[in-house]
């Protein structure tokens, strides 16, 4: 427990010295971001409580945490699904806190947990990819969507997945399996190199074979393009295997971080042990609260 506390304070130090985003140009920086859902109602959820975080260009960070710990909310805040109550978010030094989701998507790409979310089912594979290739341009700047040259280029990119999908460019993407769609979504997210790649438990809805495929693809694309990546995962195995930093979230806060040598030596058992610690701490908190109640009420 003491150790966890110390790590948190270490973290806040790290943010203090890198405070000015313009000078360091962190790929991503979150400064004291807090957000409460259903604020003021009985079901109010304090999803993020002063989260600060910085990713240097090329960092691959995984985020783990129990259900409701705020790890997905963290990702959604960066993606712009909602605008946080408090705090600021910078991408590549630019303040994007109030930028709408679609504008942010032009530099921050994303793979969802649900393979159905990231692709348009009734559009063909080629059409879906073409839209992703145009990520940085407004569709209102009129031009032809799918030229012959474009088709050839996209076909080549799909072939790099080694899934044989280059022969199905004209198929509606909705007719493909979840694993195939997720592989294509990952490709779509990286067709144009994003400033930041967000992976939101992107293998959670897949069968074991597809999980392995998509994890391999993720490793390949992140390392070959040197992508700055923030990945939320439910899988301790993936957190241990992928990335160079692991963040652990609990009750809307980042409570622990493993980096450098600590991350390299990290085992699944270590992560589980921290989780157990958190749980027992919580039990302690509850009995302590009970005691205080009895004393003062």
């Amino acid at each position, binding site marked *: 427990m003491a150790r966890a506390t110390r790590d948190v304070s270490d973290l806040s130090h790290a943010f203090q010295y890198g405070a000015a985003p313009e000078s360091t140009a962190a790929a991503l920086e979150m400064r004291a971001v807090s957000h409460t859902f259903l604020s003021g109602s009985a079901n109010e959820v304090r999803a993020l409580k002063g989260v600060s975080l910085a990713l240097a260009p090329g960092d691959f960070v995984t985020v783990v945490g129990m259900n409701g710990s705020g790890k997905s909310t963290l990702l959604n805040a960066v993606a712009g699904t909602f605008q946080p109550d408090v705090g600021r978010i910078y991408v590549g030094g630019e303040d994007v806190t109030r930028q709408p989701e679609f504008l942010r998507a032009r530099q921050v790409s*994303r793979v969802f947990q649900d393979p159905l979310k990231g692709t348009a089912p009734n559009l063909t594979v080629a059409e879906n990819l073409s839209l992703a290739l145009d990520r940085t341009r407004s569709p209102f700047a009129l031009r032809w969507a799918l030229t012959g040259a474009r088709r050839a280029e996209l076909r080549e990119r799909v072939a790099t997945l080694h899934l044989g999908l280059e022969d199905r460019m004209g198929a509606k993407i909705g007719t493909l399996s979840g694993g195939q769609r997720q592989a294509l979504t990952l490709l779509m997210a990286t067709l144009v190199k994003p400033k930041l790649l967000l992976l939101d438990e992107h293998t959670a809805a897949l069968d074991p074979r597809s999980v392995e495929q998509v994890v391999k693809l993720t490793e390949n694309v992140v390392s070959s393009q040197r992508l700055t990546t923030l990945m939320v995962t439910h899988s301790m195995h993936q957190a241990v295997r992928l990335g160079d930093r692991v963040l652990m979230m609990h009750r809307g806060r980042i409570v622990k971080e493993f980096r450098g040598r600590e991350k390299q030596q990290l085992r699944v058992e270590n992560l589980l042990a921290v989780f157990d610690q958190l749980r027992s701490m919580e039990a302690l908190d509850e009995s302590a609260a009970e005691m205080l109640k009895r004393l003062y009420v």
Partner: protein
Amino acid sequence: MNLLFGALSMGLVLALLGLGVYISYRILDTFDLTVDGSFAFGAVVAGVLLTRGLGSFWASAAGFTAGMAAGALSGVIHQRLGVSRLLSGLLVATALYSVDLVVMGGGDISLASTHTLPTQAFDLWQRFGGAESGARLFGIEVSARTLATFLAMLPAVGSAVFLVDRFFRTSLGLAMRATGDNAQMARSVGIDDAMVFIAGLAVSNGLVGLSGALFAQYQGFVTIQMSIGMLVMGLAAVAIAEGLMRGRSLGRRIVGVVMGSILLRLVVALALAAGLPANTLKLVTAALVLLVLVIPDVLRRRRHLAAPANG
């Protein structure tokens, strides 16, 4: 034969209505009640401009623009003011009813003495030596006026359909299809789905307004009655098109809507010729839409029941 060409011309004109409805109903995946309003509005704007002496091309273009404005307005009311899709369309259509009456200065206007597309076509027909009385096609007499109208509508509607087909091959057309199919996906590839939706309703209702403008010229008058039941008419064309075309490509489906609309007019013309009272037309159209929508479902269910239960 006159009946046939009349139905063909009207089918072509209403194909634009069908295409407009196809865009909102199938591509944007919404139910746009603006259509009834924008059809009449396009007709009214074109009609009033024609009586002021404007040529048919510019009057039709104005009808298209008027429809676009109506569509964009209900798009804005939905996307920016947070009013539901159904209600925003209904509000705009209802408001347009009054606008139409005010602009026309009454319930109807006659285009008898104006240069409509049919009268201009007839003038051309005569100038190029077309027989005053008409022509013989397959041994049957066709009036010159009817034939000239058809020959004028064909390129007018044809070029509009061609442009729609091209449009959906552009970045904006593709973005529209993506937005209707999966708005979350559209957003996550940097598409402003709200703006694209508004633009989609504008294009859709622009076609509907153009259809109204051409329809008014075809029948030679504008009446406020034109604002009733046009959405159902458009849906009928789309439903028939989907029965006809199981093809996957969008181009083929666009052609299908044109064919569906023409077929609908032929059926209506035949029914009228066979003695169906004109007053029951909307009832018959509504029943037809219901049938075309329900029959494939019923067939599928029966097939499911007939097949051995295997989950």
